[in-house]
């Protein structure tokens, strides 16, 4: 990587994804980096955030003295509710997800493959811990599935792959990936199409950090 290159941090990735969310969309934000996205949607742009535990219209974290213990998001953080917000039970909440009513979910990821396969809940089928949560429902149900993740693992192995090696969350679901280095659309029949790269990084350098073949936009 070129000297002085500045890969995006967690907040930077969240802010980059936030830029692309249009007004009026219904959006579910997964645990981790995606949760940060809400803070970067401009206040004047109305986006309705959904939380799996039956909340539509999630607002920002409240000041300490305004916290409502009965109001937490899917990450069990205390939140606020926007005017126009509403509550439903868990089956109705997932009816929104599974019935195709969300315009977008943004999920964290371990691996994304060029056919849109996503792995984000387990690194091995043999593992005892299985933290599936709502990710499989969201990956299958939302109209758009964006993933935010580091472009490579901590030890430099690629996460942008020809094929996922971890257990899948859902096959063929991802439509776009925001990494610390680039924005990649996943296009049916073509694979990863790079639409944005951070300043100072060349397409070839990005390709070198990816296993899958990348395409120019």
């Amino acid at each position, binding site marked *: 990587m070129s000297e002085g290159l500045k890969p995006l941090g967690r907040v930077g990735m969240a802010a980059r994804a936030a830029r692309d969310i249009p007004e009026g969309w219904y959006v579910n934000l997964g645990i981790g980096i995606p949760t940060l996205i809400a803070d970067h949607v401009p206040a004047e742009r*109305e986006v309705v955030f*959904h939380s799996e535990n039956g909340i539509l*219209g999630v607002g920002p974290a409240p000041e300490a003295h305004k916290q409502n213990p009965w109001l937490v998001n899917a990450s069990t953080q205390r939140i606020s509710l926007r*005017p*126009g917000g*509403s509550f439903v039970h868990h089956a109705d909440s997932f009816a929104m997800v599974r019935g195709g*009513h969300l315009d977008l979910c943004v999920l964290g990821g371990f691996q994304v493959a060029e056919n849109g396969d996503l792995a984000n809940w387990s690194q091995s089928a043999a593992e005892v811990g299985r933290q599936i949560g709502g990710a499989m429902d969201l990956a299958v*149900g939302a109209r758009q599935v964006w993933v935010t993740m580091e472009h490579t693992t901590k030890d430099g192995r690629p996460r942008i792959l020809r094929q996922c090696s971890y257990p899948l969350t859902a096959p063929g679901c991802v439509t776009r990936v925001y990494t610390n280095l680039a924005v990649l659309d996943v296009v049916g029949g073509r694979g990863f199409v790079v639409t944005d790269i951070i300043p100072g990084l060349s397409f070839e350098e990005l390709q070198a950090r990816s296993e899958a073949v990348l395409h120019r936009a």
Partner: protein
Amino acid sequence: MIDKFVRSMAEAMNGIRDGSTVLMAGFGEVGSPHALLDGLIEQGATNLTVVINSTGRVRNPSQPAQGLPRLVELGRVRKVITSFVRNHSVVGDAVRDGVLEAEVVPQGTLAERIRAAGAGVPAFFTPTGAGTLVAEGKEVRDYDGRACILERALPGDVALVEAWMADRWGNLVFRDASRNFNPIMAMAGKLTIVQTHHVCDLGQLPANEIVTPGIFVDRVLHVAAGDPTLPR
């Protein structure tokens, strides 16, 4: 700013295409989107499949047909999916004359199929209708020693809904028994169009009391429609 209110019936009906499946809410004239039905008659879409609980009363020469029976009289409906067809009604006569197809199904199966469409369930098993005419041509499987039949989800290209109050996000509440098919049809419509008696500011409807969240609603038209009348 999200604003699902439309300012005219023409805007509410815009883009409904020939061949659409249209879900029409209401039960016994209560919760029926009468104004939107009039709007659809005016709008002109034809070759429709209509999903509605009940297809109308026995013909009464002194009362001109409205709503679904009027659409049928105009030859605009290809098929109805319903729980109730009466002999000597406009719909019954059209079925008898072979100009209208009718799929008559149990009311609970109808409701569950609509809800399934809204919830992303493509098909489900139910014991209702097993061992009856309703089961004809359907897959049968035993669960817990009981014969069950496989039923398909019933999505709409368009859902026509009546609410009591609505806000600009499309959040809805319903008055008393007018709730009936409205919330599930709102869920199951690709394009859900609402007529509402009252308009609220955003935040005026308490979050715990909203029955249909705006995510299920596309367009809202303010129609002060008055009280429902008893069926004629």
